[in-house]
């Protein structure tokens, strides 16, 4: 076996491990494991095609006189499943590194931990933003085709357009929320369970608290506050308006990310 290394050259000072390099590295990491491709496929399948199926099955009823729901509500139905996929992807990009020990290689290559976290966040939120819009468009286009045949088509404008674009915003946000939890917990199953429990179970349970406390906690829970942006017609009319709710969700995610950064930069890798 040959071991022809070159003589030690003086370190090349032009090369940098800066933020653009860290983003490129995270992009390569994301797409070089199969779990990413599976999760993206699942998001499109569950979020997009399940919406089409539900719309196809309900189109006739929605067009009838018995219908007590608006067609636009059904066109964003897949969000419920897509958000779970976003949580899984957000967890995997972080906890996949902790469970394999690869996070040490990551921090050795890019010693600024804030830079690693920021690069991961930029890549993941960018991917989920596009994915969320694509999934919503697939669901809308397919579902609306059945609605139009029944004469109840919804035009892609106003709240419907906002919901399609908002689907990208919400998935990106939920991905970042999970990334922050992942950096704090460092454990795949723990991270996914914690985020899903908070969004899907605790988010509903706090409404059982009496009076204004329960009312406001319900409005402010991250899943409740953030998901309105991705719904053409609010599933629950008692929640915050779409943009106000999303603003609350962005603040909550930012606070959690700041906490994660404080924990990660102090901790031994």
């Amino acid at each position, binding site marked *: *076996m*040959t*071991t*022809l*290394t*070159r*003589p*030690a*050259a*003086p*370190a*090349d*000072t*032009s*090369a*940098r*491990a*800066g933020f653009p*390099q*860290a983003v*490129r*590295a*995270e992009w*390569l*990491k994301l797409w*070089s*494991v*199969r*779990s990413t491709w599976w999760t993206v496929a699942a998001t499109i399948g569950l979020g997009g095609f399940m919406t089409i199926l539900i719309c196809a099955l309900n189109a006739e009823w929605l067009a009838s006189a018995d219908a007590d729901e608006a067609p636009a509500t059904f066109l964003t139905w897949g969000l419920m499943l897509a958000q779970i996929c976003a949580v899984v992807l957000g967890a995997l990009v972080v906890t*996949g*590194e902790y469970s*394999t*020990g*690869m996070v*040490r*290689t990551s*921090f*050795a*290559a*890019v*010693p*600024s931990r804030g830079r690693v976290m920021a690069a991961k966040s930029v890549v993941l939120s960018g991917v989920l933003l596009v994915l969320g819009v694509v999934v919503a468009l697939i669901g809308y286009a397919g579902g609306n085709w059945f609605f139009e045949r029944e004469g109840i088509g919804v035009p892609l404008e106003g709240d419907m357009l906002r919901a399609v674009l908002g689907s990208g915003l919400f998935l990106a946000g939920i991905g970042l929320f999970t990334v922050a939890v992942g950096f704090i917990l460092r454990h795949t199953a723990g991270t996914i369970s914690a985020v899903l429990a908070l969004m899907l179970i605790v988010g509903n349970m706090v409404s059982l608290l009496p009076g204004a406390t329960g009312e406001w906690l319900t409005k402010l829970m991250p899943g409740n506050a953030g998901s309105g942006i991705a719904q053409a017609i609010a599933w629950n009319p008692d929640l915050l308006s779409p943009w106000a709710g999303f603003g609350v969700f962005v603040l909550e995610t930012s606070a959690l990310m700041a906490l994660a950064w404080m924990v990660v930069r*102090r901790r*031994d*890798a």
Partner: protein
Amino acid sequence: MIQARALTKRFGDKTAVDGLDFTVEPGRVTGFLGPNGAGKSTTMRMVLGLDRPTSGSVTVNGRAYADSPAPLRQIGALLDAHAIHPGRSARDHLRWMAASNGIPTHRVGEVLDLVGLDTVAGQRAGRFSLGMGQRLGIAAALLGDPPVVVLDEPVNGLDPEGIRWVRHLARQLADEGRTVFVSSHLMSEMALMADHLLVIGRGRILADTSMQRFLTDHATSFVRVKAPGLPAVATLLDRAGLDLERVDDALHVTGLDAAGVGELVGREGHVLHELTLVQSSLEDAFMRLTADSVEYRTHAPAELEGASA
């Protein structure tokens, strides 16, 4: 060059690394030797900025690791073979590492060739044997063509051919003027690889010396003597001022070589059944050195101050 100054790491009330002062010089292979749990890996993680020192500091080429604009070009490290995602191919692992430090992509192919993984580069790293994982880790360490190379237990899991290859590689990197810092818990391996030796036990430096010096200082030798009239021979040698130790039916004599002992005994007309020069192995020397540190620690912690200087 790697410089540690009063480098200390505590985990709770356990002191893993206790005020280390050392310099790892370029152009030679420095062995970092100590039993498991002595603090080798913790020290190496602090060199790479992964663990934060409780106190003291360590620098690479004069600055803290985290301050390097492109760390993989300053120092390449094999930390442990598991610091790799099992679902990612060897080539993809090296590609993201190269991208993170602005290292040209053609280096990936070069280091894969260098470590002999070019034919399996597309396979997922999780399918690799321990030895192949080590080779991938070494490829990652050499990716940035760094002047400082740190290898934590590089021969773990390697077959004899692989061990020879690592030995040869370490030598070549040092000959090229690089700083090479290799840890091991195997004295015999260090004796073959290292020019300079840093021995650590219980988080403290027990020896910081050239390999040659370590051999003369610590690998003691004695002459084993067997004779039918052993007590008489013992009296004779004792009178000559030699150090004696009775082990079973033999005497272990220090202070004179075999020829000297033979002449002394022969002049008095004693019969000898055996006269052998016994050189204790490096492994023995290492065990004695680290065992002492453990003993001092248990019985009289205060005395360690002098012993470890």
